């Protein structure tokens, strides 16, 4: 019965579809991320494509090798093999199998159909994303959690389909839906009672290392990526603030997207704002490196959005301590900016632009551990001053 039904459906769809499948697609990149924003953690593998493709998946008898076949697809990336999360999916490998490409995924435990989900995402012209095929595989042997990063206690766990063109789950896709927080429409809280005085000891601070994962940020003349400078400075800043008695939360501690690979801009930035809200932070610091068309432009600036009476004070205290870092193009001052993370965070916030990655001299300095440490110590002392009132 079922076979006949499937054949019928195939017959209906095959005619218009053959127009699309006539031209073959290429895989231009493959990347992955571990997602913890669901009852069961999962690994997401994303394949960038030059056109939409057909896919089918099978799991071998042992259950530890899953093959996703992309029809009429050629490999056009050097990124053919990924070592991933040893607890969820160990590796992914691309293998040209005639006209098709096989994505071979190895899992540490035996998985079944309920653990895997394959879907396509369309080309996103606004965010400059290509056609994509997404493979989600969830961790085996862990009980679903009721609270997790991204969960909302006031609403029951339901599958939120963030992309309208993602196919509706049918009998062939997992029974356990993967929950993706739709953070732009479900704010986690409306208000945070932040503190602004009484010393730094015991204060809660969220640090947001700018960009990460699929978003490199600005890229310098020698290829230095902004995301790879903001992270070490932020990790050093975490240590410096903790040494002064503050409690620190990070929006990311590795080279990952906070919301997910190739998320829309607002989703990605809201996920960062949400870290500050959930941790009830007293302040939020976003760490960035500036860039500009003219490579001789340099210097240091602090951005703020005057949503509370404290944002400007915080910006002033931090800019004073970082502005004169030796070798940089000098003090560009504090600047008002309608930046998403500043405007949407529910506590005083700043975004520091620590030099210009587009300036060869500043790019070279930003690679130095000692310069990164200086910036971290200077920001920490600015924060300490701020909490003195």
């Amino acid at each position, binding site marked *: 019965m079922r076979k006949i039904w499937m054949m019928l*459906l195939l017959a209906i769809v095959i005619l218009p579809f053959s127009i699309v499948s006539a031209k073959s697609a290429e895989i231009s990149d493959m990347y992955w991320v571990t997602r913890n924003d669901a009852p069961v953690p999962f690994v997401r593998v994303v394949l960038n494509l030059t056109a*939409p493709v057909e896919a089918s998946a099978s799991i071998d008898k042992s259950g530890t090798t899953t093959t996703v076949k992309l029809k009429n697809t050629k490999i056009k990336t050097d990124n053919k093999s990924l070592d991933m999360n040893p607890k969820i999916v160990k590796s992914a490998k691309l293998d040209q199998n005639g006209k098709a490409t096989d994505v071979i995924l190895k899992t540490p435990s035996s998985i079944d159909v309920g653990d895997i989900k394959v879907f396509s995402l369309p080309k996103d012209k606004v965010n400059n994303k290509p056609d994509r095929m997404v493979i989600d595989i969830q961790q085996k042997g862990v009980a679903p959690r009721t609270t997790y990063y991204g969960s909302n206690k006031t609403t029951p766990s339901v599958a939120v389909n963030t992309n309208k063109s993602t196919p509706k789950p049918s009998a062939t896709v997992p029974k356990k839906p993967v929950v993706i927080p739709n953070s732009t429409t479900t704010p986690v809280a409306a208000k945070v009672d932040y503190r602004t005085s009484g010393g730094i000891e015991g204060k809660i601070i969220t640090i947001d290392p700018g960009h990460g994962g699929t978003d490199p940020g600005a890229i310098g003349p020698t290829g230095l990526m902004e995301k790879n400078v903001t992270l070490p400075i932020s990790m050093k800043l975490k240590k410096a603030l903790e040494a002064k008695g503050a409690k620190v939360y990070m929006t990311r501690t590795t080279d990952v997207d906070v919301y997910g690979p190739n998320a829309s801009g607002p989703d990605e930035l809201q996920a960062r704002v949400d870290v500050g809200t959930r941790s009830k932070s007293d302040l939020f610091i976003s760490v*960035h490196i500036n860039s500009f*068309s003219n490579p001789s432009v340099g210097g240091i600036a602090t951005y703020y959005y005057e949503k509370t009476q404290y944002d400007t004070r915080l910006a002033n205290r931090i800019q004073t301590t970082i502005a004169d870092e030796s070798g940089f193009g000098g003090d560009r001052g504090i600047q008002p900016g309608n930046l998403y993370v500043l*405007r949407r965070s529910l506590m005083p916030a700043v*975004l520091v632009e620590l030099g210009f990655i587009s300036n060869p001299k500043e790019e070279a300095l930003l690679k130095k551990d000692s310069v990164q440490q200086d910036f971290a110590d200077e920001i920490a002392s600015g924060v300490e001053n701020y909490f003195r009132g």
Partner: protein
Amino acid sequence: MTKSIRLMLVTIVSALLLVLAGCSADQNELGSSAKASQSSTKTESAKAANASQDSMSKMTIYVPLDNGKGVTPKLFTVDSDKKTIAYAITFLLDEDSRQSYPIFPKGTKVNGVNIKDHIAYIDLSKEFLDKSNIDGLTAQLRLASLVNTATEFDGVEKVQFLVNGKSIDLYGGYDVSEPMKRMEKQIVK
């Protein structure tokens, strides 16, 4: 026992949906952009008609400086019937392209401008979203020059950006989901 999944159907259907969605999205895009430029012609020519007693008018544009210091006003005298926001921005993009280090992506054009309830809806071509360098100071000066140039016109208080007829939410970290006010602090004279 073989554990075999057939996701083919789902993906075929989804691919079909994508194709269909793609077609209709394109149509919408074209439709609304055409609509935007039509209404802009209407709104802006009405405005020009009001000012037609004088054959020449003064127009200020804010050019982003390639030394990164901000945006600077430049005053021009133009035929009154040419004094529109679309013309001012075209002028501004042209001035920028002649600098040693242009701030706007090459090829950025104005598709149309529509004014409604004191908000100028500026529709730009896709080059405006050229991803190579929408960040930091570059994004800041692009927005400041456009917003300040448009709000220089009588009755325009805020600016909302569109690209090929679709509104944009985010530009280089800037929240542009709501109409933007004048960016006075970026003006250097």
